[in-house]
């Protein structure tokens, strides 16, 4: 593995990694809040809302993300919804990950003792205040390990965007590997993925630690 060669291909791998990071970051920014909203809807007293959201979760978890990407980019234009490649990828990733997050958060909400709501009610707090100050902080703490799993998955799932022609980390490595007939780029790709997930792992640990001041 000559150092010159590594230096030669690193810029293209880094630019691919930058695409991976952008997709990762914006998917989390979109999917986490959406997941919280959907999880609340899944617990709604209004059954049509529950029905629609359960269908959405089933659809998103029940089909491959790869298929969803293809459908959004190649299929939706047939009904005059045209996305450019990058927004198409974000759209599919956010919808897909929000469904997983929704199920995780639903479990988190279900794990909160009903007495917490009653404790707040008899103090005169509104439902929104109760959610914001008491319920959500506890839910967030309880779901960190499960959300962390999905976050790590997302780093790697982002490689699926090759299917709609986006140049991410894995694709950059693939291109170099095919062109130069060597596995070196793919090894480097593996190392970069490992570094990315390492950063995530530490960030998640930090978050768990941050919330460990109470039990």
């Amino acid at each position: 593995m000559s150092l010159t060669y590594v230096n030669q291909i690193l810029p293209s791998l880094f630019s691919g990694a930058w695409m991976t990071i952008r997709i990762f970051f914006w998917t989390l920014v979109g999917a986490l809040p959406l997941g919280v909203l959907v999880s609340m809807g899944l617990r709604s007293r209004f059954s049509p809302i529950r029905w629609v959201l359960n269908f959405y979760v089933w659809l998103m978890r029940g089909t491959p993300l790869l298929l969803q990407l293809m459908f959004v980019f190649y299929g939706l234009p047939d009904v005059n919804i045209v996305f450019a490649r990058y927004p198409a990828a974000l759209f599919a990733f956010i919808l897909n990950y929000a469904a997983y997050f929704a199920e995780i958060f639903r479990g988190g909400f279900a794990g909160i003792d009903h007495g917490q709501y009653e404790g707040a009610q008899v103090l005169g707090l509104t439902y929104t205040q109760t959610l914001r100050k008491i319920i959500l902080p506890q839910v967030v703490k309880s779901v960190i390990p499960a959300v962390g799993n999905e976050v790590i998955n997302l780093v790697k799932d982002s490689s699926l965007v090759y299917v709609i022609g986006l140049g991410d980390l894995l694709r950059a490595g693939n291109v170099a590997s095919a062109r130069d007939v060597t596995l070196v780029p793919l090894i480097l790709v593996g190392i970069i993925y490992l570094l990315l997930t390492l950063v995530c792992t530490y960030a998640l640990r930090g978050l768990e630690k941050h919330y460990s001041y109470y039990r």
Partner: protein
Amino acid sequence: MLELKNINKSFAQRKILNNFSMIVPDQQIVSIVGPSGAGKTTLLRCIAGLERPDSGSFLLDGQPFDPVEDRGSERKIGVVFQDFNLFPNLSVVDNIMLAPKMVTGQTTKQAREQVEPLVDSLGLTRVVKQYPFQLSGGQKQRVAIARALAMEPAILCYDEPTSALDPTLRDTVGQLILDLKKRGITQIVVTHDQQFAEKIADQVVTVKPLNA
């Protein structure tokens, strides 16, 4: 003075409260006793607005009163739950100041000044910065009492105040309830402990399980 008139409550055809009436005079302690399943807790939950009775009425100081609509800063009924329902994510002082800040709209400084004497008088000064999981049962209960009193309720209700404590603390909480009475606080105490009830209460109301 709180008056309950002909309160009825059933769960799935099982009658829990049948034409229940009672009067809670100001600055007195009324104890509600009876075996498990007699409807004591249901009665307390109706008074606290956590359950809506099927029928019957409440009068507070002679005015019609609906516990379920008893909301916001004007809320009249405070509750100390059997397992306290403290908020684990908030420190002791934040548990106590949450409602004064969120509901009454006090600043942190105002709330701190208001709750300080309360915290002192309940012997919680040393634990204000701790979290509920670090407290003993008796301390948790006093936090729950302080949290309820911070909203200056007309009536403070307790659900089984002795059950989550070890027996030696029974007399301590009894004394605490009597101390609060001296400060002019009207209290309703639900308990299965007849002895305890007789020791603290001005009036003991006995409820019996209804045969369906």
